[in-house]
C-alpha cells in the first residue's frame, strides 16, 4: 500500500465526514424551517440571516448544559448508548459511491471510501441493524420505565421492519445481479436504466422501512412524547441528547443516500453521455446531482413528518408483518417471473 493512496483516502474520509455532519446540522434547521412553512409561521429566524446560525447556537447550548447522569442509572452503558448511536451512524456511509472517478494529472481518484467491497449493500444493512443497540442500551441503562418502553419499542420495530427491508432488497438484487454498490450505481447510467422503473413496488417498501429504521414520523414510536414523555432519551441531557438527535439526522442522510443510489441512479443524470463534456466535468456534475437527490429525499422525510400523524403501536406491527412482508415476497416472485420471461424470450 502506497502512501499517496492512504492520504487520498484520508482526505476523502474527512470530506465525507464533514459533509455528513454539516448536512445533519443543517437538517435540524431545515426541519424547523419546513415545519414553519407548512404551519404558516416563520420558524427560527433570529440567529443570523434567515436563522442560518441557529444550528451553531443549538450545538453550543448542548455543550454548555449541565450533564446529568441519574443516580439509579447504569453509568457505563448510559454513556455507551449515545456513543454507539453516533458511531454506527457515522461509519455507515463508507460504501456509498459519491461519484465516478476523478482524473488529476495521471492519478485516478475514486470517490468512494471503501472500494470494491463485495457485499457493500449488506454492509450498510448490517450497520443500520447495529444502530438499534445505541437506543436499546441507552433506554435500559436510564433505569426509567418510559425509557425502557421506548427502547423495547425501538428494538421490536427495527427487527420487524428489517425483514421487509431485506426482502425488498432481494428483489432489487435479482435485477442488478450484484451486491457491490458501485456496480449497482454504474448500471443505472442515464435515465431509463434507473432501478425505480424496474422496482417501483420494491422502492415503496424499502422507503417505508427506511422511515421505520430511522425512527421518523409516522414511525417514531420509540420517542413518542405523548405517551412516553421523551421515549428512550427521557433521562438524557446535554450533548448526549444532542448525539442521539444528531445520529437520527445522520441516519436520515445516509438512508437518503442509499435510496438515491439504489433506486434513483446515484450520481447518474439524464443525457450525461450526450452533452460532450469531459469525464471530470461529468463526475463533478454527477456529485452535485447526487447531493441534490439526497437533499430532495431529506426534504421528503420532513414533508412526511409534518403531514402524517403517528401510527398506533398495533397498527405499526400489522403494517410491518401483515402488509409489507407479504408484499415484498410477492414482489420477489413477480420479479423472478419477469426476469425468467425476459431471459427466455427477449434475449
Amino acid at each position: 500500500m502506497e502512501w499517496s493512496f492512504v492520504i487520498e483516502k484520508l482526505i476523502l474520509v474527512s470530506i465525507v465526514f464533514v459533509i455528513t455532519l454539516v448536512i445533519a446540522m443543517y437538517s435540524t434547521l431545515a426541519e424547523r424551517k419546513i415545519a414553519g412553512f407548512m404551519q404558516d409561521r416563520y420558524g427560527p429566524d433570529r440567529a443570523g440571516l434567515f436563522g442560518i446560525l441557529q444550528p451553531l447556537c443549538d450545538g453550543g447550548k448542548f455543550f454548555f448544559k449541565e450533564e446529568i447522569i441519574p443516580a439509579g442509572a447504569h453509568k457505563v452503558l448510559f454513556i455507551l448508548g449515545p456513543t454507539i448511536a453516533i458511531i454506527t451512524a457515522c461509519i455507515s456511509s463508507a460504501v456509498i459511491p459519491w461519484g465516478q472517478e476523478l482524473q488529476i494529472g495521471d492519478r485516478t481518484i475514486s470517490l468512494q471510501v471503501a472500494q470494491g467491497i463485495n457485499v457493500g449493500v449488506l454492509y450498510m444493512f448490517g450497520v443500520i441493524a447495529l444502530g438499534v443497540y445505541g437506543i436499546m442500551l441507552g433506554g435500559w441503562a436510564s433505569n426509567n420505565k418510559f425509557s425502557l418502553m421506548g427502547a423495547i419499542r425501538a428494538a421490536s420495530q427495527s427487527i420487524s421492519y428489517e425483514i421487509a427491508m431485506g426482502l425488498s432488497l432481494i428483489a432489487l438484487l435479482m435485477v442488478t445481479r450484484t451486491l457491490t454498490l458501485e456496480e449497482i450505481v454504474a448500471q443505472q447510467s442515464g435515465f431509463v436504466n434507473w432501478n425505480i422503473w424496474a422496482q417501483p413496488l420494491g422502492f415503496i417498501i424499502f422507503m417505508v422501512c427506511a422511515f421505520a429504521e430511522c425512527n421518523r414520523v409516522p414511525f417514531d414510536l420509540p420517542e413518542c412524547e405523548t405517551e412516553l414523555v421523551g421515549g428512550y432519551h427521557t433521562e438524557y441531557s446535554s450533548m448526549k441528547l444532542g448525539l442521539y438527535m444528531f445520529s437520527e439526522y445522520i441516519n436520515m442522510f445516509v438512508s437518503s443516500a442509499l435510496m438515491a443510489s439504489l433506486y434513483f441512479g446515484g450520481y447518474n443524470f439524464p443525457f450525461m453521455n450526450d452533452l460532450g463534456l469531459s469525464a471530470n466535468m461529468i463526475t463533478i456534475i454527477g456529485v452535485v446531482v447526487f447531493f441534490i437527490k439526497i437533499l430532495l429525499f431529506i426534504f421528503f422525510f420532513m414533508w412526511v413528518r409534518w403531514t402524517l400523524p403517528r401510527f398506533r403501536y398495533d397498527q405499526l406491527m400489522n403494517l410491518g408483518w401483515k402488509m409489507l412482508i407479504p408484499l415484498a415476497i410477492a414482489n420477489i416472485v413477480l420479479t423472478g417471473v419477469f426476469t425468467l420471461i425476459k431471459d427466455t424470450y427477449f434475449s
Partner: protein
Amino acid sequence: MTVFYFVAFLSIFFALLTIFTKNPVHSVLYLVITFFTFTIHYILLNAQFLAVVNFIVYMGAIMVLFLFVLMLLNLNKDTEPMKSNLVKFIGVIAGCCLLVTFFGVYRVFDISNPLTVVNPEIGLVKNLGKVLFNEFLLPFELSSLLLLTAMIGAILLAKKEPKQI
C-alpha cells in the same frame, strides 16, 4: 498471523467474560463483542459474505432479541433463583463431557498437516452462491425446510387458542 492471534485472544477473552460476568445484560453485550470478533475472523479468511451475514443475523437480530427479553425480565441479583444441587451436579457432568470431547478432538487433530482452502475466493458472494446451488443444493434446501418448520412451530406456539363455541 499476528492479527489472527490477537483476534483469537480477544474472542476467547470476551467469551470467558460472557460466562463469568454476573449481570445478564453485560453477559449478552460481551457475547455481542465475541460475535464481532468472529466477523473479523471471517474477514481474515476472505469469507466476506459469511462475515457480513454473521454480522447482520447474529449481532443485528438474534442478540437484539436476547437483549430485548433480558430487559423485559429485568433480572437482578436479589431475584436470582437459587440453583438446586441437582442442577449443579448436571452442570458438572455436562462440563466434563465437553472436556472429554475436546480431548478427543485434540487427539485426532493433526496440527502438522493443516487443511488448506483450495480456492481462496470461495467466500465471495458469487462463488459461494454457485457452490450452494450446485454441489450442496439438497442440504441447502433441506435446511431451509427445517427453518420453515421451526418458524411455523413458533407461530403455532405463540398463537392464542381459538375460543370454544
